[in-house]
């Protein structure tokens, strides 16, 4: 495996691995925050098994002087927290990897004579303080010291984090942090480990968010006041975040009996003037599909967040994939328009979600936000989220006595009334209907209504978000990606150090932007990178442009792309051509 980041002055990756229930998430939670408070850019991503206890999970934290927001295979510092940990990540351990942990957790061949395998008796130290439970805090203290986090920052954070747990637990955690910190300081002084990443005070005040939180905040900014929801990984954390802030924003999260109920609730709520969103994954969305078609027929807005995970069926519940694009594009019986967004970054997740509510309302159609486990569970710091120009665009009209819900108009959009606002009656029907909304079997009326619904596509095509070209306009190789692969493709290309490779990223995948074929035609060769097995976005591009993208980099084992994989594969493709 190539070592992309041989220059360790810029960026390091820390990997924590251990059993579910062992507290890796707590270590990650505290570490990324104290490292950021110390002035480092951080990003973290996790991979975990579908179980509550046991197994082996890992979290990667990248610490850097620059913004690095992609997953790398490389491990600079490994903290194995159980016996299976090293085996779990063995492919990623290099001779340069520093391994910090208890010797019982080292694999046999690593035990002897390696300078960079350092035995730290976390559990023993923790037991002396008051119990093995404090071992994780010792590790936090150790890593904080290695990165020269001020002791006060660590202490304050620990105090705050454990504040609900009572004096003894707070004191013990502070002591555990201190012990770890002392060991780390000694290691630094002994010159065994040298970390020279620059800190920046600008980072301290940046926003630290996960993809899931960004979508939840985007929903609030979009005026969402109802989230009917059935629990399903990886979309649950989003609903939990909304529920935690429910009263603050009068955003009700209701656990529905199933996803069928959830989407029918969402559509009912929009009909009566609320702004609702559903959040689910592929399997849950499969149950929502009839409801999606209902939204299409009623011309009721609805916002659907789908966090993809590998299928078919239950698939790999806690893993990632971009395998549901074609499903979402085709879903629903009958023909009706829709919009599909695919955020590439945490900022995108926020802004696109906010926009989804206005667009759904404007065109009276379903709007999708298509993410995946990788994006939802990733955290990194971003400079800001700008809400100053945001507004809730108002499209609901007050009805008069002769109001007709489906009045035929030039652009196919009929002014949308809601019951109880005005003198009119708002009639919507899942059967084909006349302009008043009443059931009809008249063929002429049917044709008119189909045309009316589809006509909205003409207008919404005019406001498709253009794809972003990263790199020079004079490219020979064009790399195409969509959704959550934005950061990994962008950073991987930067390591190839070639100005004839550019990257075209789509955050709106449907309708396809009209400039797409032009970008492809300009290239000498085109490569598509997708986290699925059949190049679903490539298929869509072919469908709408007739253009075949010959080179494909596909991954579908349930894990996100790493920098190394993308860079290696791209290099091979570029070299084979030269």
């Amino acid at each position, binding site marked *: 495996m190539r070592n992309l980041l041989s220059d360790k002055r810029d960026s390091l990756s820390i990997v924590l691995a251990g059993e579910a229930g062992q507290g890796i998430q707590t270590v990650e939670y505290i570490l990324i925050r104290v490292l950021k408070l110390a002035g480092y850019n951080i990003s973290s991503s996790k991979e975990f098994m579908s179980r509550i206890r046991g197994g082996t999970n890992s979290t990667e934290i990248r610490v850097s002087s620059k913004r690095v927001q992609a997953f790398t295979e490389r491990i600079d510092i490994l903290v194995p927290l159980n016996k299976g940990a090293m085996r779990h990540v063995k492919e990623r351990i290099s001779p340069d990897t520093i391994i910090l942990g208890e010797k019982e957790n080292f694999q046999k061949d690593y035990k002897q004579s390696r300078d960079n395998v350092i035995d730290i008796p976390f559990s023993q130290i923790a037991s002396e303080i008051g119990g093995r439970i404090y071992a994780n805090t010792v590790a936090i203290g150790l890593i904080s010291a290695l990165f020269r986090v001020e002791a006060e920052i660590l202490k304050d954070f620990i105090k705050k984090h454990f504040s609900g747990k009572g004096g003894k637990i707070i004191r013990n955690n502070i002591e555990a942090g201190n012990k770890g910190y002392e060991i780390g300081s000694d290691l630094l002084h002994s010159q065994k480990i040298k970390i020279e990443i620059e800190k920046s005070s600008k980072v301290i005040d940046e926003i*630290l968010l996960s993809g899931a939180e960004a979508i939840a*905040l985007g929903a609030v900014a979009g*005026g969402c006041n109802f989230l009917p929801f059935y629990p399903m990984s990886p979309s649950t954390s989003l609903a939990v975040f909304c529920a935690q802030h429910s009263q603050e924003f009068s955003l*009700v999260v209701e656990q529905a009996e*199933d996803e069928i109920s959830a989407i029918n609730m969402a559509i*009912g709520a929009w009909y009566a003037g609320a702004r609702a969103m559903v959040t689910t994954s592929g399997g849950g969305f499969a149950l929502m599909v009839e409801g999606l078609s209902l939204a299409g027929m009623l011309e009721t807005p609805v916002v659907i967040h789908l966090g993809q995970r590998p299928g078919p069926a239950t698939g790999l519940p806690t893993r990632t994939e971009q395998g549901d694009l074609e499903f979402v594009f085709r879903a629903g019986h009958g023909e009706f328009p829709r919009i599909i967004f695919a955020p590439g970054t945490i900022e995108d997740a926020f802004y696109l979600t906010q926009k989804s509510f206005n667009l759904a309302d404007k065109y009276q159609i379903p709007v999708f936000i298509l993410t995946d486990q990788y994006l939802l569970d990733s955290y990194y710091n971003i400079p800001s989220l700008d809400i100053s120009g945001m507004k809730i665009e108002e499209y609901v009209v007050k009805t008069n006595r002769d109001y007709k819900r489906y009045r035929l108009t030039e652009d196919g959009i009929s002014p949308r009334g809601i019951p109880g606002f005005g003198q009119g009656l708002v009639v919507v029907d899942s059967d084909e209907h006349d302009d008043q909304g009443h*059931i009809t079997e008249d063929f002429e009326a049917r044709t008119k209504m189909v045309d009316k619904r589809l006509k909205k596509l003409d207008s919404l095509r005019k406001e498709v978000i253009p794809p972003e070209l990263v790199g020079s306009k004079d490219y020979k190789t064009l790399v195409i990606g969509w959704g959550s692969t934005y950061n990994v493709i962008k950073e991987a290309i930067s390591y190839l150090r070639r100005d004839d490779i550019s990257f075209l990223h789509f955050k709106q995948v449907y309708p396809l932007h009209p400039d797409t074929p032009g970008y492809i035609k300009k290239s000498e060769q085109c490569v598509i990178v997708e986290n699925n097995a059949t190049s679903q976005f490539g298929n869509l591009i072919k469908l709408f442009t007739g253009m075949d993208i010959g080179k494909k980099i596909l991954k579908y084992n349930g894990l996100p792309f790493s920098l190394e994989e993308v860079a290696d594969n791209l290099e091979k493709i570029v070299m084979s051509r030269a």
Partner: protein
Amino acid sequence: MDAEMFDMGDIDIAWCPGCGNFSILDILKETLSELKIRPENLVLVSGIGQAAKIPHYLKANVFNGLHGRSLPAATAIKFANPSLVVIAESGDGCMYGEGGNHFIHAIRRNPDITIIVHNNMVYGLTKGQASPTSGLGFKTLLQVEGVFAEPFNPLAVAVALDASFVARAYCGDRTETKGILKKAILHKGFALVDIFQPCVTYNKSNTYGWFKENTYYLEDSYNPQDRQEAFKRATGKGKLALGAIYINSNKSSFEENTGIYQKNKEPLYKRKPDWGKLSSLIDSKRRV
């Protein structure tokens, strides 16, 4: 107010001549007008089936959604604007078959809506198959050996779930049914009215005469607060009870339980995001 204010004028009604749906439609219009409910403040929510077409035949706001899915939609409509009168109305196949799971959970959730189920013990629109409430031995082109699945007992299920209002009516008795419907609509919380109704085309067993013979009205001394007794009456063999069989008025509604209407009575369409609070929440992620 006059029941005529709900009239749609000269419209094509898709029911068979002599169908029990006609009397339910008339009774509903009279009930609504006597309760002084205005069409623009009323939302009728239905699913699919012959009964589910009823909202098209009177003046009201209408949400005619998917087969079996009227209750989630009705729950959300009431939640989005509690000042609306929301009635979900459909047939036994829609409410108890395709929508059975929603029936159970809507009762648990207890939105302040009324649900009217036209129970004719057969599928009409799909031409005569058994419904969840068809009696044992009921023969159809599909159930050639006769129905052998235990009939669904909506009243017993509702009482078991401690529904806040459970009643049964018979469409042939205009005055009594109107009285039951009025109570149901005025009741705060989930109110079920299962209405017996003959299907003159596909159900030759449960006719007008059969319902007359096999039902009885709860006596004046009957105490609908007694859940044990209600369960006994709902499951009792022999004649079938008509009237409000169970009432539990001590429940708060779904809309109340969400908490968002405690301080602010505004329906959701009037609410906008609190940009100040959102800004603070975003800022709280700076030094976390």
